[in-house]
């Protein structure tokens, strides 16, 4: 597989009143593990259930209850690690992160602190053809999600829903390698794409399956390069963490706002306080949630109820062998094998279903033409009608049939669009529809000639004009096509018209 070559994009620069500022962004993405049951209990993870219906004795932290690891969730984390080309730690440890909150029944979250299951990896964030940022992944660890506190249902009471409590999350921690709001959004998009390819997270941001904490700082030109050379964070500015973002758009807006806020403080002679902030999408601003001084002391220590996670290299290799083709490889292969542009390859590989659909259409056909039809006609239409590709009214076989009819010269491109419309609304076999509805292109020169003669005879004045002005020939071609309901082979019509008019 020949990988595509990329150059690094320039970092986003914001001009302050006194100086130019660059952005430095690191992310912690919480991805809900695609699993039917929770990380340490057998309770269901189904979204949208009645409050407190998916809660086991373990989730509710009843006295004497003990967690038991869900091995499938571990496998999913390992699969994710392999998908991010990360090192897999054959031994990792679950720790308790202690804090009090009503939606945290145990009084601690089981997480991985010092010894995560996945170590260093990398994500290529492709910004545009040939331009991509390689974002280093620091680690991925498994942890429990908390429940939900509801404070607005009653003036005096708060309510707690424990359905989410104990659901498995992968926290994917990046290095501060993201250099702008657009890159941040693209990073999340790319991560989501890979997770969906792997089947380890459904990536549904509305349902909270994917949330991001965003660390933002600003620095002057050159400082970031010094950090990369030395690994010394003191070259970078003080960071603020924006918690719990679940929309790409808000991530961009929040970073933009936060960077400008920090620049204003620094240029005003102040210093940025390290703190946790929340983004308010209504006001379009971030606001302080808690300062560094108010930060919890989580009193991490190894969870004595659980043994360390230990597995063999052979087990990891087995998972590695079952990995699907990932977006970067698929994209490179599409460019190479089907001759499509990198841009089109990106569109076609956005997710597995779309890519599979394209491949089914392109197999044994012209790749570029297949890409055109799949992207412009099919995806365009699906998008317009908000229909998922899995429910496309036109199947890959049908669309392939349309392309075959064009290739054989049975129909023109224009007729093909009509045919596509019929297939979309009424269905049917493309060749049969063309036959039954007499849509087949007329290639019989005799019939075309008759039609041309008829049009010429009906318009003697225009014939005279055309002889003086050869560009008028197009008008006759149009008339003939109209008379033949578009079925005449346009090239043949053009040739005959020109010949009969005596123009070249």
């Amino acid at each position: 597989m020949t990988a595509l070559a990329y150059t690094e994009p320039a970092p986003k620069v914001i001009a302050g009143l006194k100086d130019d500022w660059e952005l430095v962004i690191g992310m912690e993405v919480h991805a809900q593990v695609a699993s039917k049951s929770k990380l340490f209990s057998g309770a269901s993870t189904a979204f949208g259930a009645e409050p407190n219906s998916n809660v086991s004795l373990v989730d509710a932290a009843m006295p004497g209850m003990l967690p038991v690891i869900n091995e499938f969730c571990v496998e999913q984390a390992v699969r994710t690690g392999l998908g991010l080309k990360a090192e897999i730690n054959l031994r990792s440890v679950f720790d308790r992160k202690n804090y009090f909150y009503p939606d945290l029944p145990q009084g601690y979250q089981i997480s991985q602190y010092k010894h995560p299951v996945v170590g260093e990896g990398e994500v290529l964030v492709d910004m545009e053809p040939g331009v991509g940022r390689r974002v280093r992944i620091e680690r991925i660890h498994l942890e429990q999600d908390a429940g939900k506190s509801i404070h607005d249902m009653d003036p005096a009471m708060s309510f707690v829903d424990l359905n989410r409590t104990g659901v498995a999350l992968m926290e994917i921690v990046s290095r501060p390698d993201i250099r702008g709001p657009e890159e941040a959004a693209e990073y999340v998009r790319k991560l989501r794409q890979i997770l969906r390819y792997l089947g380890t997270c459904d990536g549904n941001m509305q349902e909270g399956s994917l949330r991001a904490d965003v660390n933002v700082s600003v620095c002057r030109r050159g400082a970031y390069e010094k950090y990369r050379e030395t690994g010394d964070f003191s070259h970078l500015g003080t960071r603020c963490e924006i918690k719990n973002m679940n929309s790409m758009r808000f991530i961009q807006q929040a970073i933009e706002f936060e960077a400008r806020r920090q620049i204003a403080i620094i240029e005003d002679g102040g210093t940025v306080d390290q703190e946790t902030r929340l983004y308010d999408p209504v006001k379009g601003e971030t606001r302080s949630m808690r300062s560094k001084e108010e930060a919890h002391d989580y009193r991490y220590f190894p969870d004595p109820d659980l043994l360390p996670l230990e597995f063999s290299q052979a087990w990891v290799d087995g998972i590695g062998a079952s990995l699907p083709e990932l977006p970067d490889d698929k994209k490179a292969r599409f460019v190479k094998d089907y001759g499509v542009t990198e841009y089109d390859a990106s569109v076609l590989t956005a997710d597995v279903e779309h890519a599979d659909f394209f491949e089914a259409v392109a197999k044994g056909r012209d790749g570029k033409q297949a890409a055109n039809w799949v992207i412009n006609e099919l995806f365009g239409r699906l998008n317009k009608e908000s229909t998922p590709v899995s429910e496309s009214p036109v199947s890959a076989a049908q669309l392939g049939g349309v392309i075959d009819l064009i290739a054989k010269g049975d129909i023109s491109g224009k007729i093909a669009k009509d045919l596509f419309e019929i297939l979309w609304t009424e269905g049917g076999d493309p060749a049969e529809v063309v036959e039954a509805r007499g849509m087949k292109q007329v290639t019989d020169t005799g019939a075309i000639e008759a039609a041309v003669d008829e049009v010429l005879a009906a318009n003697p004045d225009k014939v005279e004009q055309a002889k003086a002005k050869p560009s008028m020939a197009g008008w006759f071609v149009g008339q003939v096509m109209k008379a033949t309901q578009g079925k005449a082979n346009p090239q043949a019509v053009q040739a005959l018209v020109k010949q009969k008019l005596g123009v070249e």
Partner: protein
Amino acid sequence: MDELSSMTIAEARDRLRARDVTSREITEACLSEIESASALNAVVTSTPDKALEMADAADAALAAGDAPALAGIPLGVKDVFCTEGVRSQAASAILEDFTPTYESTVTAKLWDAGAVHLGKLNMDEFAMGSSTEHTCYGACVSPWRRAGDTAPITAGGSSGGSAAAVAAGLCLGATGTDTGGSIRQPAAFTGTTGIKPTYGRCSRWGIIAYASSLDQAGPIARSVRDCAILLGAMAGHDPKDSTSADLAVPDFEAALTEDLRGKRIGLPKEYGEGLGAEMQATWDKGAEMLRDAGAEVVEISLPHTKYALPAYYIIAPAEASSNLARYDGVRYGYRAELAQGDGIVEMYERTRAEGFGKEVQRRVLVGAYVLSAGYYDAYYLRAQRVRTLIKRDFEAAFEGVDAILAPATPGPAFGLGEMEGDPVQMYLQDVFTVTLNLAGLPGLSVPVTLASNGLPLGLQIIGKAWDEAGILGVGHALEARAGFTAKPERWW
């Protein structure tokens, strides 16, 4: 004491099978003894209806000839075990009237084996304590008294209720848990026998946690044989407890022997440092008995022993501070009355201040402290290193010996209230027992003699991991030679 309720389990088992007595008769005898023993405050929740129903079922099974191992044997259960439909609150006010919808694995196994549930037994709150004085039910009183004295004596702790109930003939045996000595010390204080098995031998599922890496369930009974019988029923792998070992449970009773020829028994010299003369004499006597049974007795060294107690009092509270975080007044148990305008923080603070007793609060605070940023390395991490060293001490020692004989306690039981105001003095009670919990090893406490003040003294046999059968064998030989038959004189 009623003759029926004072039988050993082995004896009752034989008589039940011989149809010489019914479970109903034994159970009724126990229930009547419980009724008249309120002065001991050993039984905190009695379940007579349940007990009689179970006894009748056992009698039916016995009559049908397909009775399981413990059919018809009435037992008491430490309040720390969750028992379905029966109040289980680990002697804590914060679990006020908590009635589980589930049954702990260990008690479920006992009921499956045909045992009869008499009720729940007093203990130190959340198993934190060595005297069963720190309990929401009020202190448990030992059936024993010092010779010529009526001052109330402790039955030990935290399984004090279990030990008192067995010693006073309220039940034939009882479950206990041992985190730092909570089975062995009360057994030694009350002239009963108790075994803490290897960590992982019994499931912890359904046992209200104190310190997860140290807690182990085990029995307190009237003989080594009874301990072997009960442990056989309680032990076994449980997929619901990740730390329970997937190992076959040997036939412990079959391993009992009085012949120790070919066995080497170690006496750790560090355990003698500062030991009182009376306990030292008892220990020497025990060693002599083992020699008499054919064992070779040798001195060994466990050099890190002196660090065990401080390490224990860091690790156990650290785990406890986290394990007890779930008692927050949100979902079950006690919730403090709140004033207008109080929020969640006030609810936590008041609920936990009012619901937890002083000793529990002390340990939660210590635990939170040793885990906090800046102190973790100096306390928790260092204590874990000590733990590793203590494990290694034992591993090295067991290369040369089959078992270790040691005192179970520094001396006989103390009076109620005597340790009040000096928690460290109380903690020192655990000096000989905590090392095993840190190393995860099994220990058996066997009564050997009476002290000059008329109170029992016990010795402890320590074994290699998973060698409960070995220490039960040594204990059986010791028991046979010690011939300890003293019973408390009835005053209650």
